[in-house]
């Protein structure tokens, strides 16, 4: 009987919850779905009304809704039904550059809780047109921007979503398209849940998949990203904050930059990540890249299950000293397991909009790399069950980095440079290059070169405590070749 009462109570609680989350139809507020009317004020009115009346969902039924900047408020969810598209205005003047955030966006939220954007509808920023209209205004002198590289600054182009200091966010089922700047940014937020979203973000410079900045408690799963710039991008803008307690599962990404990226801005750090079942394909730079170049701390990262197909580089871990401002960055306790990767000979993102720039030439195919600093080594990295297929065919007449002390020491440290896998130009290994590290474990790792390469597969430089067990190297015409070359390395164990 008591049990039955509990069930009844539960039922009523459930009912109560559902009743309080009321649905409001957008068009009821005079919002037009004609694809022409700029609905900014009406949508804002609707959000404010729902927020002031106990919360609920603002439902966009099938149709095209044009808007400029709107602010989402606590306890309001934007529900985009199948067939509903929120179209960003193509006029930059219809967007607000939020004073606190310092960026433009279509959908803002600042200091709100229990908010969401859900449903099978689409948010389309129409960013290419908007960005070009902004260029036009700048040329006419009615908007001030240095127009560096002939593009407006990232902060003067609208993103689709920018949430700052919000708690309990749900982004479910939606499709995000064509922003003018990054795409969706969650900055100093708590409890962000992203599930089953689709991102098509390659309409203009800097279009990312998702940017998570200094957030605590993040789940991103079952999502697909096609982005001109980084796909899953975790950043740390504030030295007092960090990205932590993050789960990424079952995501697929394509990029003309990197797949899973920590940084580049990396002031606070990144801790306690678990990334599983990640697929990265047709990607110009690295499938996985962690940068601690601005004083940030990277610790306790587990990556399990990666397919990296037709991607320029597989793993790039880097400590640098760019904007550290006397903070001492570190990177330790990283496990990457169950990886299958294919690195192509040609350009992996050829033909996509906003292709990555061909740079750091001449160099033969770059290896995966772990590169710390002399006084600041990358610590405890375990690579387990890894299989990487390279094209090989490194040609010393095109670019050469030999194995003499002079040549190995001649590789620049590039402490203050922007971190990219190709930054050192030609490296002396075709499979994996490790420099300034301690506690590196390779377990059951296979490197395959499809053609003969002049370099060995692995070079270790200034490494303490490296253990290889079950290393397999396949390279044609290379019988008797020394495939692991240690330099200034102590306590190397090859089982």
């Amino acid at each position, binding site marked *: 009987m008591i049990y039955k009462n509990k069930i009844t109570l539960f039922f009523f609680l459930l009912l109560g919850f559902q009743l309080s989350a009321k649905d409001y139809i957008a068009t009821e507020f*005079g919002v037009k779905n004609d694809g022409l*009317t700029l609905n900014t*004020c009406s949508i*804002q009115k609707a959000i404010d009304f729902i927020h002031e009346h106990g919360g609920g969902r603002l439902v966009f039924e099938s149709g095209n809704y044009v808007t400029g900047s709107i602010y989402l408020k606590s306890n309001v969810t934007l529900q985009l039904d199948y067939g509903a598209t929120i179209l960003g205005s193509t*006029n930059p*003047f*219809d967007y607000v550059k939020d004073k606190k955030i310092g960026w433009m966006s279509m959908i803002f939220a600042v200091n709100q809780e229990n908010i969401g954007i859900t449903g099978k509808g689409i948010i389309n920023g129409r960013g290419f047109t908007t960005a070009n*209209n902004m260029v*036009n205004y700048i040329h006419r002198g*009615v908007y001030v921007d240095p127009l560096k590289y002939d593009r407006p600054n990232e902060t003067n182009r609208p993103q689709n979503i920018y949430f700052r200091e919000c708690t309990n966010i749900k982004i479910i089922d939606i499709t995000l398209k064509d922003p003018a700047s990054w795409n969706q940014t969650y900055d100093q937020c708590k409890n962000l849940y992203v599930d089953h979203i689709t991102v098509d973000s390659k309409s203009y410079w800097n279009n990312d998949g998702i940017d998570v900045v200094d957030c605590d408690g993040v789940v991103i799963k079952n999502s697909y990203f096609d982005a001109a710039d980084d796909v899953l991008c975790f950043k740390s803008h504030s030295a007092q904050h960090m990205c932590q307690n993050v789960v990424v599962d079952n995501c697929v990404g394509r990029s003309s930059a990197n797949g899973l990226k920590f940084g580049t801005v990396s002031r606070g750090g990144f801790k306690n990540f678990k990334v599983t079942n990640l697929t990265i394909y047709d990607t110009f730079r690295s499938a996985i890249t962690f940068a601690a170049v601005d004083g940030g701390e990277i610790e306790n990262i587990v990556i399990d299950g990666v397919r990296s197909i037709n991607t320029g580089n597989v793993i790039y871990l880097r400590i640098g000293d760019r904007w550290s401002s006397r903070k001492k960055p570190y990177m330790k306790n990283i496990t990457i397991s169950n990886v299958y990767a294919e690195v192509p000979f040609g350009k992996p993102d050829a033909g996509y909009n906003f292709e990555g720039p061909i740079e750091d030439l001449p160099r033969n195919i770059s290896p995966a790399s772990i590169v710390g600093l002399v006084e600041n080594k990358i610590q405890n990295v375990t690579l387990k069950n890894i299989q990487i297929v390279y094209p090989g065919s490194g040609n010393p007449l095109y670019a050469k980095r030999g194995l003499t002390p002079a040549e190995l020491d001649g590789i620049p440290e590039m402490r203050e440079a922007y971190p990219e896998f190709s930054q050192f130009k030609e490296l002396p290994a075709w499979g994996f290059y490790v420099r300034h590290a301690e506690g590196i474990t390779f377990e059951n790792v296979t490197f395959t070169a499809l053609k003969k390469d002049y370099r060995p597969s692995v070079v270790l430089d200034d490494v303490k405590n490296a253990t290889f067990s079950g290393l397999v190297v396949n390279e044609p015409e290379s019988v008797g070749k020394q495939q692991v070359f240690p330099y200034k390395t102590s306590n190397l164990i090859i089982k």
Partner: protein
Amino acid sequence: MQKLFLKICLIIVMSQGALCAKDYNASLFGIKSDGVTLNTPSIQKAIDFISEKGGGKLKFYVGRYLTGSIQLKSNVTIELNEGAVLVGTSSIYDYVGANGIKALIVADGQQNIGVSGKGVIEGQGPTVLEQIAKQIQKGYLQETISQASPALIALNNCTSINIEGFNLQNACGNVIALTACKQVRLAGLKIKSTTNKETKGLVFSKVDGIKLENLFIETVVSEIKSDGLSTNISLVNCQYASGKSLIFKN
């Protein structure tokens, strides 16, 4: 002698700089004349820009310019040339007010402002009124109809105002509402707003110095209303549509 000449030149150049308000075409700011694009933020951006640059005219030429409330700023004149129609949007949440009076063109605490030209301001009164009634009925809009009805022009606490030459039609609320303004000139306006019975042609309160010249006003009930707290009022050659010449009790 040469020095004196240079000084004179300098004075001329400087005074010209101060006097010569610049002209800006609406298209410079991406304002669209298609009657469909809601231009509120672009027109506002234009006004803010011109005011920050020291003032001037924002010129509209042939076309229908759809907009919600725009806020006029110091030293800016909106010039509606022949064939230019500034159209009030039917979307009621795009209107804001000055001193509690909503309007298509509002200004609060500004100086040297104006609206001129031979164009039209069209309020779309019946459509706006219908939307207001619906939103009140649904409970989303918690205002009375008269609070929610936008005027065409509402100015509060402004000084040195010139409104001249154009046509004003189909206001949802009143046509022109002035509160606590100084040095006002309304001249050569053709006001025709008979779609809402309640609409008044001109309402003013606590205005010091108002010249009404060559006005033609057609409303259903009340053409001009003043609350008796205004001073220095002059009337020259103003007419009602009914044919009687314009007089009113202050």
